[in-house]
């Protein structure tokens, strides 16, 4: 049994943890790739990363991307950008703080420690001097948090929600990456970059050789059951958690069925078939369905407002119930 608010906090802690890791990986990639990009490509790649992370609206509020330092500030330290690393790390900490009574102490300490290690928190314009070290620190801390989550936390509903949050966020990231790659008319997002941005390059090489082609990578990121970041793998784990949770929380049965349907569409090749005709609209629709799934999970957790209605009538002082009218109702 878990409080609805705690379930929500753990779901979001899982989502933001994944987001912190994804954004850090994208930033690392952007910082490293500057060494071999041709003039003009850096901006195109930056826009592609922003699209992958689904942050176009947030970027629009800041203005057009003009330089790589601007991209780094936007993705790393901009506290107005909910997808920045700082925002995600802060949100992980805040969400875990609200449930610190039910999570392992080490989990809270690691999340709090990561937050406290940001010297520029609260200063959106501060440029970090050692980007590589900061990103490495974030990714290592995220891995440590994941490790404690997986190895140190009881397999209760709270754990299930944290994992569910991670899987939803990860699916959204991977589908977003595929969508951005297909929409990329300038050829920035090639097969190798897709694999690097999902930490899947090495795994792909071992399985398929070291000359990745675009279509094969897309299939790999969609279908590989043994790849933790593939969409199918994420859906499997999300569905498994939802099945367990829905056995007692009826409101989560709807998202459970939706996850099962998405998995079936993927396994039966329906998504790929549609992609062969219209890849971008298909992936956009697929992404929208994941967003809807995430929204359904949220709706399933948060009880309807009607539950807050107080039906009790006023009991006068001294009219304490003697149990005579069903729990001492008003007389």
């Amino acid at each position, binding site marked *: *049994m*878990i*409080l*609805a*608010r*705690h*379930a929500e906090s753990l779901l979001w802690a899982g989502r933001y943890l994944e987001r912190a890791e994804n954004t850090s990986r994208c930033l690392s990639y952007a910082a490293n790739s500057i060494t071999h990009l041709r003039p003009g490509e850096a901006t195109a790649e930056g826009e592609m990363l922003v699209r992958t992370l689904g942050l176009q609206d947030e970027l629009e509020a800041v203005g057009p991307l003009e330089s790589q330092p601007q991209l780094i500030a936007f993705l790393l330290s901009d506290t107005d950008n909910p997808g920045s690393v700082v925002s995600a790390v802060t949100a992980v900490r*805040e969400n875990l*703080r*609200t*449930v*610190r*009574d*039910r999570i392992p*102490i080490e989990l*809270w*300490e690691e999340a*709090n*420690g990561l937050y*406290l290690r940001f010297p520029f928190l609260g200063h959106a314009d501060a440029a970090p001097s050692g980007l590589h070290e900061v990103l490495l620190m974030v990714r290592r801390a995220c891995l440590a948090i994941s490790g404690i989550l997986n190895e140190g936390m009881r397999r209760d*509903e709270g754990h299930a929600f944290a994992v569910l949050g991670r899987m939803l966020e990860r699916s959204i990231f991977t589908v977003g990456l595929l969508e951005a790659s297909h929409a990329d008319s300038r050829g920035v997002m090639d097969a190798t970059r897709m694999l690097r941005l999902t930490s899947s390059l090495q795994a792909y090489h071992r399985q398929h050789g070291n000359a990745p082609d675009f279509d094969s990578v897309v299939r790999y990121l969609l279908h590989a059951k043994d790849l933790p970041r593939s969409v199918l793998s994420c859906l499997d784990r999300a569905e498994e958690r939802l099945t367990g*949770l829905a056995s*007692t*929380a009826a*409101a*989560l049965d709807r998202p459970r069925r939706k996850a099962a349907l998405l998995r079936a569409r993927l396994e039966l090749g329906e998504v790929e078939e549609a992609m062969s005709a219209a890849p971008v609209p298909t992936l956009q629709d697929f992404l929208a369905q994941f967003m809807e799934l995430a929204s359904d999970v949220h709706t*399933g*957790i948060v*009880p309807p407002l009607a*539950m*807050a209605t*107080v*039906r*009790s*009538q*006023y*009991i006068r*002082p*001294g*009219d*304490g*119930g003697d*149990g005579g009218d*069903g*729990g*001492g*109702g*008003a007389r």
Partner: protein
Amino acid sequence: MVDVIPEPGSGLLDQYQPGGAFDEAFDADGSVRGTYSRIVERFRELDISEVRRLENLVADEFRRQGITFTVYSEEEGTERIWPMDLFPRIIAAAEWDELSRGLSQRVAAMNCFLADLYNGGGQAIADGVVPRWLVVSSRGFERNAVGIRVPHSAHCNIAGIDVVRAADGRYRVLEDNLRSPSGISYVVENRAAMAKACSWLFYDHPVEPTEQYGRMLRSTLDSMAPDGNDSPHIVVLTPGIYNSAYFEHAFLARSMGVELVEGRDLVVDDHTVYSRTIEGLVKVDVIYRRIDDDFLDPVAFRPDSTLGVPGLLSALRAGTVTVCNALGNGVVDDKGVYPYVPDLIRYYLGAEPIIDNVPTYMMWDPDQRSEALARLDELVAKPVGESGGYGVLIGPHATERELDDARATIEADPRNWIVQELVQLSTLPALAEDQLEPRHLDLRPFVLTGERTEVFPGGLTRVAMRRGSLIVNSSQGGGSKDTWVLAPETP
């Protein structure tokens, strides 16, 4: 891992001079008291750099865990790391035995008074032990609590009694806290941090453990189920993550293995409290609330409060839930009622108080008022409804103008003031600059009452970190010490 005992250093205690107050570690002639002989020896082996290193280890531990407190009067950066001085307070077994008996006695009498007041027709008032006008004019008196039945008549399940040691070495009660006394989490975390940073200090000291608090509290709250249910659904009710004591609320829930809820997590339906879980509404039996009475139920109390649970009072009256501590305990926290507690002990228990009060003048008594105001420059004036050291005037430290202002304020509103003899709080060595120097301290032990009463060994030792200061509150620059109660020696 084997601890390494540091080599002798350069005498942190070489220039230690106990002042006029009772020093817990040293006699007036400068010789070490028996209880402290081994710890003083250990500290004499340390040098300042080693102590600083250990302090940093402890501070890092607190920072990592987010063990902080909030200073509301500051505009920014209000979260501070909990300050702890490494030199522990040590209480010998026999001394603790007497102190804990005195605390149990005091809390028992106050529980009797609360039960009498809210459910027994007010016999003590009728018999003239406490004036009726004083009780009903107290801000802590809660008419809505009249008639709400409380299991075992235990209105105060968790009490924090502030005691001090005067110049004669005897303990005295300075203040009673029967609403939401805080500090127990710091007691447990102080010990954990000390044990991690300098476990070798504990050698040869049979110190009573502190980690059993969660178990003791759980057992107390289990016994408070309204219907005698032996495995009640217990929750800890917090105002939320921005409350200064949120760390403590989470600590309490975690150490008991129960949920930490906010008001919005609870709902009252048909005079029954439920928590909103993903499986639906689940009945709640016992609420350990860390929210003041006024904020508990916006229907009955402050309508602007979003912290509480609408309809909670109706559930209390229906007897479907127990709120711990009970509603209306603030009447005993009122410093105006404090002078009557020794009489309450005599009245209800037929015994003399084991721990005395600090001599107190009641400002609503004209004779006592004129006597006290004439020598206010030697005394301490306290508003009856404040806590945390706020509003306190220490006569010897006040200017003539401050004294005159205080006299006028008291004359205008005598019901809301008491004046006490200045107690030179006892001292212990604490680190100042590069030496250990005497610093004043108090002690807040915790008394748990449900079906039976237990006193948690030790308590929160608060220490004034400025030379000569008598203000130990953390909100006003005070620190803390680990408190060691020594186990009785086995024959």
